[in-house]
C-alpha cells in the first residue's frame, strides 16, 4: 500500500518506537528466563539434575526443560529481530517525514503552489522556469513517499516472518515471489562471484525478497560468504532444526532393541556359527551388528548436532548472542559459530582450531572463542569484540599421523580466505579490526591461507604453532609487524620447531619424550614452512604465555600445556585480547613472563 502525502506528514511514530523498545525488553526477559530454566538441569546437582531426580519422570523433565529452553531461545531471537525491524522502520519513516518537511519548508511559494495533497502547481505566468522547479519538488516528494512505502513493506515482511504472523500461504507466496531472485543468486554463485559482489547484490534486494529467499531456500544462503551474519544465523538454525527433526524419534529405542537381541543370541550361543570348517558369527548376528553400527553412527551424528544446538542456545557469558554462521554434519562435521555479531562489532577474532577438532566436541572451541571475546571486551571498554570459532575445514584427526600433512591446510585455504572477505563485505560498523587466531595446526591453516590465497585481516596470532607454511612473517601479506606468536615453555608442540627442548608430551595416551628437531638451532625447522615462527629470523612479535593446563594449573606435561592458552589464568589470553583490540603497546613481551 502506497503511503500518501498526508499520511506521512501527519503520522506520529512515537507509539511504534515505544512498541519496538518493549519488544526488546521481552527479548531480554525471555533470554533471562531461558537461562533460569537451563540452570535447572545444567549439572547433576541442579534442582532437576540426576542427583536430585532420577528415573523416567526425571529424565522426561530434563528433556522437557531442554525443549522449553530451545523454544524460548528461538522466541527471544524472534522478539529481538522484531524490535530491530520496528526500530529500523521508524528510523526510515522519520527520515522520510523529514525529507517531506524539508521540501515543504524549502518551497518557494512565489514560484509554485503546494496543495494539501502534495501536488506542486507551478506559476507559469512568468514563463516555464517554474515548471522545472515544480518537477524537482514533486520528484523529492515522490522519493520521500517511496522511502516510507518501502520501509512499510519491509516492516510488514519482517514482522510477518519473525513474529510469525504470516499464514503458511503468505509465507509460501513470499518465497515464490523471491524465486527469480534466488535463481539470480544461484547464477552469481555459479559464476564465482566474490563475497563483496554477493553483499552488493543482497543489499540491492527488498526486505521481502531477502526474507523470501530465507524462507524458500535457506540452504542457498546459509553458508554463503557475503550474506549478513544475522541472516546466515537464521538460515542455519532453520536447517539445523529441520535436520534434527529428520532423525528417527525411535532411534535410541531401536538401538536398545538390537543390543537386547544380540545379548540374547550371545547368551544362548546362536551368535556363533560353528559347523565343520566354517566358524564365525552367524549371518543373523552379523546382520544385527551391521544394523547396530549404522544406527550408532546415526545417533552419534544426531548427538553432535544436539550438542551444537545446546551450545548456541541462550546468551554467551559475555551477554552477546551466538550466531550459527555455518555447519555441516557430514563426516567429521564442520561448524562456524560467532560470539557476538561480527557485522556490527568493533573488533573480530576468527579462531581456527587445530588437530582433532571436529563437530563432536565443538562446544570446547566455542568456549575458546567466548574466552577471547570476554577478554577482549574486558581490555577495551566501550568496544565490542565478536569472536568466531571457525571449523570450516577437515582438521587432522591425529597428531601422530595426520598433523604432519599440509593437505588439510591446503584444502582449507580458499574457504578461509573467502570467509575473511565475507566478514569484511558484511561489516557495517566502520572499518573494523579483524584478527585471525590460530591454535596449533590452525596456525598452519592460517599461514598457508594468508600466503597462498590472501586474507582480509589486520593481524594474525599463532599460538603453539608447528609452522605457518612460510619462511618469514612478511609472506603472510599483512606486514610482519602484525604477526604475533607464542608458545609456552614445555608445550609439546615445541618438538615440531624447537632447537633444544626435550619435551614430555602425552600423545595418544602415551607419555613420550621428544627432542626438538632443529638441531642447528638456526630456526630453519618446522613441521610446516621450514621456519620456526618463534625464532627471531621469522620476524614475528613474540608475546608471553604460561605453562598451564586447561584448568589453570601449572604443568610440565606438554599435551596439557598445549591446551591451556585460552583460559583467563593464562597471560596469553590477555595478550591475545590486546592484539585483537589493536592495543599491541600493552602486550607483555616474552621476557617478562
Amino acid at each position, binding site marked *: 500500500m502506497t503511503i500518501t502525502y498526508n499520511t506521512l506528514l501527519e503520522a506520529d511514530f512515537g507509539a511504534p518506537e515505544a512498541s519496538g523498545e518493549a519488544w526488546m525488553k521481552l527479548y531480554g526477559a525471555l533470554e533471562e*528466563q531461558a537461562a533460569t530454566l537451563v540452570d535447572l538441569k545444567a549439572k547433576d546437582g541442579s534442582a*532437576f539434575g540426576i542427583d536430585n531426580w532420577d528415573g523416567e519422570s526425571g529424565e522426561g523433565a530434563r528433556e522437557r526443560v531442554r525443549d522449553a529452553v530451545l523454544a524460548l531461545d528461538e522466541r527471544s531471537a524472534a522478539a529481538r529481530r522484531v524490535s530491530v525491524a520496528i526500530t529500523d522502520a521508524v528510523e526510515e519513516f522519520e527520515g522520510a517525514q523529514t525529507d517531506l518537511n524539508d521540501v515543504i519548508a524549502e518551497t518557494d511559494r512565489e514560484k509554485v503552489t503546494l496543495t494539501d495533497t502534495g501536488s506542486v502547481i507551478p506559476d507559469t505566468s512568468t514563463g516555464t522556469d517554474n515548471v522545472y522547479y515544480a518537477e524537482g519538488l514533486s520528484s523529492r516528494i515522490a522519493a520521500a513517499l517511496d522511502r516510507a512505502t518501502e520501509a512499510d513493506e519491509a516492516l510488514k515482511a519482517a514482522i510477518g516472518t519473525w*513474529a510469525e504472523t504470516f499464514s503458511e500461504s503468505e509465507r509460501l507466496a513470499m518465497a515464490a515471489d523471491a524465486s527469480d531472485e534466488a535463481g539470480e543468486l544461484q547464477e552469481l554463485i555459479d559464476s564465482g562471484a566474490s563475497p563483496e559482489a554477493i553483499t552488493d547484490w543482497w543489499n540491492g534486494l527488498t526486505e521481502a525478497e531477502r526474507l523470501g529467499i530465507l524462507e524458500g531456500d535457506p540452504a542457498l544462503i546459509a553458508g554463503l560468504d557475503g550474506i549478513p551474519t544475522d541472516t546466515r544465523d537464521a538460515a542455519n538454525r532453520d536447517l539445523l532444526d529441520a535436520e534434527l527433526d529428520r532423525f528417527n524419534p525411535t532411534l535410541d529405542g531401536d538401538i536398545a532393541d538390537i543390543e537386547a537381541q544380540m545379548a540374547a543370541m550371545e547368551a544362548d550361543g546362536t551368535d556363533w556359527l560353528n559347523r565343520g570348517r566354517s566358524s564365525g558369527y552367524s549371518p543373523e548376528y552379523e546382520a544385527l551388528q551391521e544394523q547396530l553400527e549404522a544406527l550408532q553412527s546415526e545417533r552419534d551424528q544426531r548427538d553432535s548436532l544436539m550438542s551444537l544446538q545446546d551450545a548456541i542456545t541462550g546468551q554467551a557469558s559475555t551477554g552477546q548472542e551466538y550466531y550459527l554462521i555455518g555447519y555441516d554434519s557430514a563426516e567429521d562435521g564442520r561448524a562456524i559459530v560467532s560470539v557476538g555479531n561480527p557485522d556490527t562489532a568493533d573488533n573480530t577474532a576468527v579462531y581456527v582450531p587445530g588437530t582433532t577438532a571436529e563437530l563432536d566436541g565443538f562446544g570446547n572451541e566455542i568456549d575458546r572463542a567466548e574466552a577471547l571475546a570476554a577478554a577482549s571486551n574486558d581490555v577495551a571498554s566501550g568496544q565490542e569484540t565478536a569472536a568466531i570459532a571457525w571449523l570450516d575445514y577437515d582438521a587432522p584427526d591425529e597428531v601422530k599421523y595426520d598433523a604432519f600433512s599440509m593437505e588439510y591446510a591446503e584444502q582449507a585455504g580458499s574457504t578461509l580466505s573467502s570467509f575473511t572477505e565475507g566478514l569484511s563485505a558484511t561489516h557495517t560498523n566502520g572499518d573494523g579490526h579483524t584478527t585471525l587466531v590460530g591454535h596449533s595446526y590452525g596456525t598452519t591453516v592460517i599461514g598457508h591461507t594468508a600466503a597462498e590465497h590472501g586474507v582480509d585481516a589486520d593481524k594474525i596470532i599463532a599460538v603453539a604453532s608447528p609452522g605457518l607454511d612460510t619462511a618469514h612473517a612478511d609472506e603472510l601479506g599483512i606486514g610482519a609487524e602484525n604477526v604475533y606468536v607464542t608458545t609456552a615453555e614445555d608445550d609439546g608442540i615445541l618438538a615440531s620447531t624447537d632447537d633444544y627442548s626435550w619435551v614430555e608430551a602425552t600423545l595418544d595416551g602415551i607419555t613420550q619424550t621428544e627432542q626438538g628437531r632443529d638441531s642447528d638451532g638456526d630456526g630453519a625447522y618446522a613441521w610446516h614452512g621450514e621456519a620456526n615462527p618463534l625464532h627471531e629470523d621469522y620476524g614475528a612479535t613474540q608475546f608471553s604465555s604460561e605453562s598451564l593446563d586447561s584448568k589453570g594449573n601449572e604443568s610440565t606435561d606438554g599435551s596439557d600445556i598445549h591446551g591451556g592458552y585460552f583460559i583467563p589464568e593464562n597471560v596469553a589470553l590477555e595478550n591475545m585480547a590486546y592484539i585483537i583490540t589493536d592495543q599491541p603497546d600493552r602486550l607483555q613481551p616474552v621476557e617478562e613472563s
Partner: protein
Amino acid sequence: MSEFNIEPEAVRAGAEAMFAASEAIYEAMNTLVQESSPLEGSAEAVEFVGIAECVQAVQVWETDYIAVHRADIEDLAMSAAISAETSAEADGDISSAFDQYADSYFPDGRTAPAPERPAPDPSTQMPVNGESVAVA
C-alpha cells in the same frame, strides 16, 4: 531406565523457579501489550501495513505463542511439584492433582493468571476427504 529417586526439596525449588519464570514471562509480555496498546486503532495502524502487522503480532504473541510457552513451563512445574510432594512418578491428570498443593506454591495467590492454551484453529478442524466430524 534407572530407578525413580527424588530429593523433594531440590525438585520443589525447581518447580517454584519454573512458576516464577512463567510469571516473569507474563509480566514482560504484559508490558509489551501495554506499550503497544496506543497502536491499536491508531491512524498509523490503518495507513501503514507494517504497523498493522505489529499490532497483530502483539495479539498473536499474547494469546498464542507466549501462552503456549507458559503452559508448557507450568505443566512441567506442576508435574515436578507432584513428584516432589508425593515422592512418586507423576502421571494422570496433572492439573487436578496439583490443585491440592497449589496454595503452598502460591501462598499469596498468583500474580499472573494461569496460562491458557489457545483453542485449536477451526481451519485445521475442517473435514477432509469425506471425513465426518459429527459428534454422537
